[in-house]
């Protein structure tokens, strides 16, 4: 335990800013999860592994001398096809089945991806150096890498684009209609199969963007996927499906929580703290709902 954070206010400011910038990234991943959860009623445990895969795409561009920031464009395009392929191979068989089946099946995919990435890219912790330098605030008391600011900015940009796309485009309307009532949408001529594939693809593309940004700002490792899944799950259940400002806010909240947990408990307990927070949130939710006698399935 270390309470330096409270003795030196500037460290708190640092933690808050770091957390908010990190949280925006989490919110982007969580938005993808909310999308597929809402539309297809699937909880994708492999979400985090898609993120990491996106990160490796950016990392590889970096290795071949291309600036990793271009990964923000390339990764989603590749990941979209990965997502659609995954849907065609596995996910379409679990869409209308029991939720546990989808959890277990995507858990299997997660293990598969983890190991394949381990073979393909090695088990080292890597990062793609963007060379963006750092910004100093408050007489150098707060240090912000520019890459973090860049990634937060790009995340917001992508989120806004996606919201507009969902509102205006034909596919976006079809996706929203399917989310509301898949059967009615089918009757009215929406090809739900296509919509599902596109949704999963868009989700994977969002993961790709987030992954590319994470590879620039933080580090990636083949086995680091599951925490991202859990984080996005947590953000979605706190915010609720289809509540975009809520997703953004709870994402930032989670980011700040994590930074403080990191300072106070120590880095080795950071992931543990995230998972414990998940348990606590679910338990809190259970008591809140049971008081109302309103269990949610």
């Amino acid at each position, binding site marked *: 335990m270390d309470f330096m954070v409270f003795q030196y206010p500037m460290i708190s400011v640092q933690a808050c800013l770091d957390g908010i910038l990190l949280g925006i990234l989490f919110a982007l991943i969580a938005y993808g999860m909310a999308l597929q959860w809402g539309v297809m009623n699937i*909880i994708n445990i492999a979400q985090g592994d898609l993120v990491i895969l996106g990160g490796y795409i950016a990392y590889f561009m970096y290795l071949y001398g291309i600036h990793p920031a271009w990964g923000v464009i390339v990764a989603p395009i590749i990941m979209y096809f990965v997502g659609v392929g995954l849907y065609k191979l*596995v996910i379409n*068989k*679990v869409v209308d089945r029991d*939720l*546990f*089946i989808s*959890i*277990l*099946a995507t*858990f*299997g*995919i*997660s*293990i*598969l*991806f*983890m*190991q*394949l990435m381990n*073979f393909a890219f090695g088990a080292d912790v890597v990062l793609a150096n963007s060379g963006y330098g750092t910004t100093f605030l408050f007489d150098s008391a707060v240090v912000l890498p520019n890459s973090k600011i860049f990634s937060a900015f790009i995340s917001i940009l992508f989120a806004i684009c996606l919201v507009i796309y969902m509102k205006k485009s034909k596919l976006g309307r079809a996706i929203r209609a399917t989310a509301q009532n898949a059967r009615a949408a089918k009757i009215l001529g929406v090809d739900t199969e296509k919509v599902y594939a596109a949704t999963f693809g868009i989700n994977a593309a969002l993961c790709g963007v987030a992954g590319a940004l994470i590879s620039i700002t933080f580090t990636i490792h083949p086995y680091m996927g*599951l925490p991202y899944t*859990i984080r996005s*799950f947590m953000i979605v*259940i706190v915010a609720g499906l289809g509540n975009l400002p809520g997703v953004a806010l709870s994402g930032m909240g989670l980011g700040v929580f994590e930074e403080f947990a990191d300072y106070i408990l*120590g880095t*080795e*307990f950071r*992931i*543990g703290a995230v*998972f*414990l927070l*998940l*348990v606590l949130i*679910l*338990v809190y*939710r*259970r*008591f809140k709902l*049971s008081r109302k006698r309103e*269990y*949610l*399935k």
Partner: protein
Amino acid sequence: MNKNLILYAAILVFGLAAPFIFPAFKVQLSILCVLIVLALTWNIQGGEMGYNTFGNILFYGLGMYLCASVQVGMFFPLAEWTESGGEKTFVHTPTQFFQGMAVGLVVAAVVPTIVAGLIGYSILGLRGHYFAICTLGLGVAAGEISGGIEIIGAGQGFTTPPFPDVGGLESRGEFFYFLSFMAVVLTFITVKSIYSTRFKLILNAIRDNEDKAEAMGIQTMKYKIIGWMISAFFCGLAGGIMGGLVGYIDSTDVAFDGREMGVFMVLMAILGGKGTLWGPVIGATVFHIFKEGFWTFFLGWQYVALGVLIVVIVIYFPEGIMGWLREKYPERFGEVVDEADRKAQVELK
């Protein structure tokens, strides 16, 4: 009835004779026993109660750490033991080893049971996938946290006391085999006797429709917690045995190994057939034979194979072996089949 008795006697005799028939596979057979225990206990939740948990690994890991800590801590300072990393500075005499193991196994079984009882009320109130993800989180959190605690070895692991030098080389394998075989027999008898009582019907009622069960006046929460505590008891026991068998405990790779053991128990129960008595036993056996038979051919691709296996089993084989048999030979399961009705159902499909 008589036929069943002969069957059970035959299995018992075979189980007792197995280490002498296959002396080279003692460790594998012991691991198989532990896997059967885990599959049977998972089935109480996932199969009978409809609460698909990923979190039984919590009790398994807890039991593993507790058994080893008690076994060491009864005679030597625990912190120095873990610090020395299992160096031979402290040596258990045979009496100390067996005493420590006995007490350790009791603690390893009882404490997880209490833990399950304590957290049961909060956790078991969750439903469906919230429960599944929450228990997944519990298992991972336990692994991450135990990996940061110094006294049980933190990241560098915990070496369990080595088997004392009694009765030659073979005695270690035999000791652990009979220990785990006893655990299987105990678990099986318990589970079988549970399944013939009203308790099982209550669990099934919870699985089929919890709100209705509650409306019928069943205190569902009480029974859910009891069911979980029974699972925790045997999971802890299995963990304690496995810790001694492996000889080395690591927080995320051995004890709270959600990626392997935590998934294996789910997979074995589903492969054999959820919600049946024999399903988990058959599933665990088939899975273990498959795993040991083919794992070596994959050479590092085991996890890829595991991932594919999970997806294939879950998507194409969710009813498991027992479910398939039941579909094929319903008469053997005491189901009366109306041929016309069956044909009509087939046509409907």
